[in-house]
């Protein structure tokens, strides 16, 4: 009863594919020739998507800047969050000093920062990037702190007896040990960063994918609103996929070790 035989090959592909394919086909046929104002034919939506975003100049003028701002914002969160997390994780006094502030910002719904960030930086890339960093850095910071703290005592003592330098301790002991937990933080932050790039472009940009979607809605351009929404969906999906690939690569040794030792 408990041991399920695992599906492989084309049967698995078929089982996984039938529902999405059916839904898309249904959408395509039911919306074909649709006159309904709010539900344009899927064919029209896809044609507009290709014309505007792939053949047209939008990928250069809107998509690339969005992706660049996202990458910078998320990258800064990762670097700064990990570095500060290691620092705070290794120093109990500094950590205790900042604990209340960290707890506050972790719980803060980051869009509440919009008026202030907009007030200081105005509309533009600086605002978009800052909003991402201010919202996405906290899960990384807190997970890194927890990961660093949980490095086990025996290991710490070993490090002491081998007289490793601080730099060696960080690169060879702390980071690999805290790795899985740090990456768990990255994953939560990635989700928040994707939300925030969309939000920040909706409220504080004059181009970009987020701006395009909201503007299309305000101008009542129904097909474009659909296009933007679908594109945001696809990009959210792809960014997550890329991240998971990188995670699996970086933590490869960890996964192998688990398999080898059977530890969970």
């Amino acid at each position, binding site marked *: 009863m408990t041991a399920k035989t695992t599906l492989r090959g084309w049967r698995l592909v078929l089982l996984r594919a039938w*529902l999405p394919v059916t839904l898309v086909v249904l959408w395509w046929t039911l919306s074909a020739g649709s006159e309904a104002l709010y539900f344009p034919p899927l064919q029209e939506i896809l044609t507009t998507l290709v014309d505007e975003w792939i053949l047209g100049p939008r990928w250069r003028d809107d998509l690339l800047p969005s992706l660049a701002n996202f990458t910078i914002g998320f990258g800064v969160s990762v670097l700064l969050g990990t570095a500060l997390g290691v620092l705070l994780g290794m120093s109990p006094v500094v950590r*205790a000093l900042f*604990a209340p502030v960290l707890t506050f910002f972790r719980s803060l719904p980051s869009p509440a920062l919009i008026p202030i960030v907009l007030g200081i930086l105005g509309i533009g890339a600086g605002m978009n990037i800052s909003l991402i960093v201010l919202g996405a850095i906290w899960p990384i910071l807190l997970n890194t702190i927890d990961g660093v703290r949980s490095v086990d005592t025996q290991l710490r003592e070993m490090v002491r007896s081998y007289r490793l330098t601080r730099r060696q301790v960080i690169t060879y002991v702390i980071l690999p040990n805290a790795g899985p937990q740090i990456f768990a933080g990255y994953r939560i932050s990635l989700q928040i960063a994707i*939300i925030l790039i969309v939000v920040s472009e909706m409220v504080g940009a004059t181009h970009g994918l987020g701006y395009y979607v909201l503007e299309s809605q305000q101008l009542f351009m129904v097909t474009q609103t659909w296009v933007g929404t679908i594109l945001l*969906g696809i990009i959210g999906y792809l*960014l997550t996929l890329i991240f998971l690939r990188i995670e699996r690569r970086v933590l490869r040794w960890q996964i192998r070790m688990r398999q080898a030792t059977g530890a969970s």
Partner: protein
Amino acid sequence: MSQVVVNRRASGTLSRQAELTLGAVGLIGLVLLWQVASVTGLVSERVVPAPTDVAGALGRLVTTGDFWGAVWATVSITVIGMVVILLIAVPAAMAIHASRIVEHSTWFLIEFLKPIPGVALIPLALLLWGPTDGVKLFLIVFGSLWPMLTQLVYGLREIPGLALEMARVYRFGFWQRIHRITIPSVLPFTLTGLRISVTIALIIAIVTEYIVGMSGLGSLLALAQLNGVVDQAFALLLVSGLLGLAFSGAVAALSGPLLFWHPSQRERRNA
């Protein structure tokens, strides 16, 4: 008892009391520094108002009915959203766990929908259905359903096989099995899901209110920005943070009585 614990503690950790004291010192120091920077004109009052001004703005806010109405609007829709999410996620997770066909058939759909940022749907939902509370609820549910669903499916998968075998040996009935084995094993995962979901739900609620101008904390933020009252924007930031703290505190408070038997909680009590 606590003396013993202190002695056994590894070097490099502080006592609870020392941590609290340092935290208070850090917080007060930061506010003082901010006040000094403001008063001396190191940062412009128009960009970053002094803490005393922010406190004043907060005082004026909390005496208005509009403010409490807005807080209630945001809080209530978030709570309702969580209830709806549970109502959807629990049966869905059970179906996915029970049937391999359901699991594989929905796999791509869920993996594709999961990373879509809930806020991306705001314009389309507005276009289709207009600015109603129902739309706000839909956006919250769509955007923050996935962490809960994922955690529940994990939780169901992690039910110890031994416990299930034991249930079979003792000839547990369906409800007995649910009550004695399924619920206790899945609860920790549910609470993790709830914690992540509620964070995202609050973000989506505030963004929707901000963009659409529906009553709530988000619209107050938009108004403060429009009128250029910076001290009010800071006061609202403070309120939003406290609200977030209240929600995560509520989830943490739930885990005490619900998970009193779990190792993590027993350790905490003994510490």
